[in-house]
C-alpha cells in the first residue's frame, strides 16, 4: 500500500503539466525533430528530422500512395493514421495532391510503406520529446 502511494507520488512528480510538455510534442509532430531541437537536443533533433523527412520524401519519389481521411476500409484508416504522423509533410502532400500512387510501378508499394513508417517513427519521436519535456528522460 505504502509502496503504491510512493510510486504514484514519484510518477506525478516526474510528469508535471508544463508548457513545454504540450509545445514540444505539438511542434515535434508538425516538424519531425523540432520537439527535440526546442529543448536544445540539436543533434538528436537534426538526425530525427533528416531520417523521417528523407523516408517520407523517398516514399513520394517511389510513387507511393498517401491515404486521405475519407474513411473506407480499415486498412485505409490505418494507412491514414500512419501518414498523418508525418505532420507538415502530410499536410503539404495532401494540399499539393501528391501521393496518388502508381499501380504500374512495383516499387510504389514500398513508397507507400515508407511514408506510413515515416509517420509512425515521428509518433515515436514525439513521445520521446514529451518524455524529455516532463523530465522522464535526459
Amino acid at each position, binding site marked *: 500500500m505504502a509502496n503504491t502511494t510512493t510510486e504514484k507520488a514519484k510518477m506525478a512528480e516526474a510528469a508535471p503539466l508544463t508548457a513545454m510538455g504540450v509545445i514540444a510534442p505539438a511542434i515535434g509532430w508538425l516538424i519531425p525533430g523540432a520537439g527535440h531541437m526546442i529543448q536544445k537536443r540539436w543533434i538528436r533533433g537534426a538526425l*530525427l528530422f533528416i531520417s523521417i523527412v528523407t*523516408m517520407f520524401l523517398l516514399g513520394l*519519389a517511389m510513387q507511393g500512395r498517401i491515404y486521405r481521411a475519407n474513411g473506407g476500409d480499415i486498412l485505409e484508416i490505418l494507412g491514414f493514421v500512419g501518414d498523418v504522423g508525418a505532420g507538415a509533410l502530410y499536410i503539404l502532400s495532401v494540399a499539393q495532391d501528391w501521393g496518388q500512387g502508381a499501380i504500374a510501378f512495383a*516499387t510504389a508499394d514500398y513508397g507507400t510503406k515508407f511514408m506510413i513508417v515515416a509517420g509512425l517513427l515521428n509518433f*515515436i519521436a514525439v513521445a520521446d520529446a514529451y518524455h524529455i519535456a516532463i523530465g522522464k528522460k*535526459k
Partner: protein
Amino acid sequence: MTITLNHFSAALVFAFFASIVFGITHRDNTREMVRYGLYCFAMFLGGVFVAGWAMWVLRR
C-alpha cells in the same frame, strides 16, 4: 522524379533510417544510442535474410 529501388535496397534504406530513430528514442546517452541503433540495424537486415531464406524453403 521517380526513384526505383529493388527490394533489398529498399529494406537497407528502411533499416538505416528506422535504426537511427530507434537508437535516439530508446536510449539515454550517446554511446547507448549508437550501440542500440547498430543492434537494430543488424536485426532488421538479419531479419531480411532470414525471411528471404524462409520463403525460399517454403517455396521448395
